[in-house]
């Protein structure tokens, strides 16, 4: 059932033209399994994700998409009785060699429901990664706030009220604020778990555009239930089913000529 992506020459050349070191994968998982208690949520996932690409993970509810995503920034450490086995390589280093804090600075995460810090202003939310840890960035806070809000396409809407509480924003704006907060700590990888599922179409469009623009700077993995969205934003798509990685391929290929029957049935809406 498992298909590990065969690197395609064309893609590699394309990356080389862009001057990137394409020999490197941002994330490599080998036989990655996660158990909650005795129950396996994902089983022996083998995945190689290239740098500076967008990968979407699709699949029916409960198939382990979030579980896979959350193992990549060690979020499972927070849930007791969770067992993660196999190996994960992040930026060519085994995940166990990282200090958790450093890892999460490299691998940012955007959640399904916008979750800005309600007691902090818009400004403070953007720099909340620094505020929480007391670390000092090389840039000034003002520069970070402006840069990240511009990057997350929120600057024009909030530049006159940076000191207002973050919860005064609309849901879509809050989600972009969460994206700004995530890129403020300069991650290399951004994990997004259904980032637009709580948002209206217009806000969704804005965030999809962001994802597209982010490709030069970040490696992005996005979980989505919306197959059009997967097709629109991602270079690669992984299809999961009851804990298994069924198919992983270039998005175009997976959506037009899937090799596995199950994938075809899912993307044509026969189930799920």
């Amino acid at each position: 059932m498992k298909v590990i992506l065969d690197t395609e020459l064309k893609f590699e050349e394309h990356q080389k033209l862009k001057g990137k070191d394409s020999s490197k994968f941002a994330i490599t998982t080998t036989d990655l399994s996660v158990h909650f208690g005795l129950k396996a949520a994902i089983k022996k996932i083998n995945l190689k994700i290239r740098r500076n690409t967008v990968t979407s993970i699709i699949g029916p509810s409960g198939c382990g998409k979030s579980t896979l995503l959350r193992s990549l920034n060690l979020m499972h450490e927070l849930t007791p009785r969770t067992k993660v086995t196999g190996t994960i390589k992040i930026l060519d280093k085994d995940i166990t060699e990282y200090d958790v804090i450093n890892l999460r600075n490299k691998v940012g995460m955007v959640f399904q429901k916008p979750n800005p810090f309600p007691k902090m202003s818009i400004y403070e939310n953007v720099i909340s990664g620094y505020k929480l840890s007391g670390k000092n960035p090389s840039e000034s806070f003002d520069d970070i706030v402006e840069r990240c809000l511009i990057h997350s396409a929120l600057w024009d809407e909030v530049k006159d009220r940076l000191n207002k509480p973050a919860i005064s924003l609309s849901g879509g704006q809050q989600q972009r604020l969460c994206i700004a907060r995530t890129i403020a700590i300069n991650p290399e990888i951004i994990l997004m778990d259904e980032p637009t599922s709580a948002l209206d179409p217009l806000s969704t469009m804005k965030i999809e555009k962001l994802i597209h623009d982010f490709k030069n700077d970040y490696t992005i993995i996005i979980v989505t239930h919306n197959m059009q969205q997967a097709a629109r934003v991602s270079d690669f798509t992984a299809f999961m089913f009851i804990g298994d990685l069924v198919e992983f391929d270039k998005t175009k290929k997976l959506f037009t000529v899937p090799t596995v029957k199950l994938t075809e049935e899912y993307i044509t809406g026969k189930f799920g």
Partner: protein
Amino acid sequence: MNKSIPPHGTEKVIISRKKFSDLIFENLTFVFALMILGIVLWIIYEMYFYSGESRSAFGWEFIWSNEWEPVRKEFGALAFVYGTAVSSILALIIALPLSLGVAIFLSELAPKIIKSTLSFVIEILAAIPSIIFGFWGIFVLAPFMRSDLQPFLQKYFGYLPFFQGTPLGTGLLTAGIILAIMIIPIITAISRDVLKAIPQSQREAAYALGATKWEAIKMALLNAKSGILGATVLGFGRAVGETMAVTMVIGNRADINISFFEPAYTMASVIANEFAEASEILHLSSLIEVGLLLFGVTFLINSFARLLIFSVTRNAEGR
């Protein structure tokens, strides 16, 4: 609501009968609610009425004078206000860090077994009658204060006016400590609930940004700020109104002293001690005015606390 009433006669009856019983029930509960409000207003009225003598004799001077001489018919409540305020503030200073620590431990850190055991112990602590605390205060705490804690404080912090004078065992500080023990359960339990009401997504957001456990807890505390303040004020209100235990250890002397070792008196204690023996109308009336004062203060404190807690829990539900 009415649009769904079907045309059939029988069904109509069922519906209206149900409605009738609902109506009775609703009105009955409403009457009970009114009764409680009525009792509160009644108490206020009675206290206001029976403190008339004292109010007309002393006016506002009653609050600013610390002469309490039943024999000379001089009545001023300042010493009691002072005793109540200082013992309660001391209690808060001692109880707050402890309670917060325990609340954080309970909501964020403790494994399940310890969590339930500790919660149980705290509830037990809250259920101990205050007279028992009073006994404990007299027989255990006061001797310990006299022989150990007060000499210790005097030795190392004796340069502060608060820790000068004779270590008697009883006094403001002892009362403060007893009160602290009594309000720890309230502050702990409410702070824990407020912290628990912070959605998990907030903690995850902090961790995902690379926060350590302590940093994530700081964020939760920031979110819970006003609720914890509410818990604190509620605990303070309890300390202000506490009578028995304090009466037994505070020393019961209507004096204002800067030293925490000195005996003092609280509003609640003076009422408890003197009410039965007060034969003079003016004396009685003055005691009732002290009661009115105490009622007013605790009422304000409690309303303020409830408002704060309400604002937090309501926000938490919205998310």
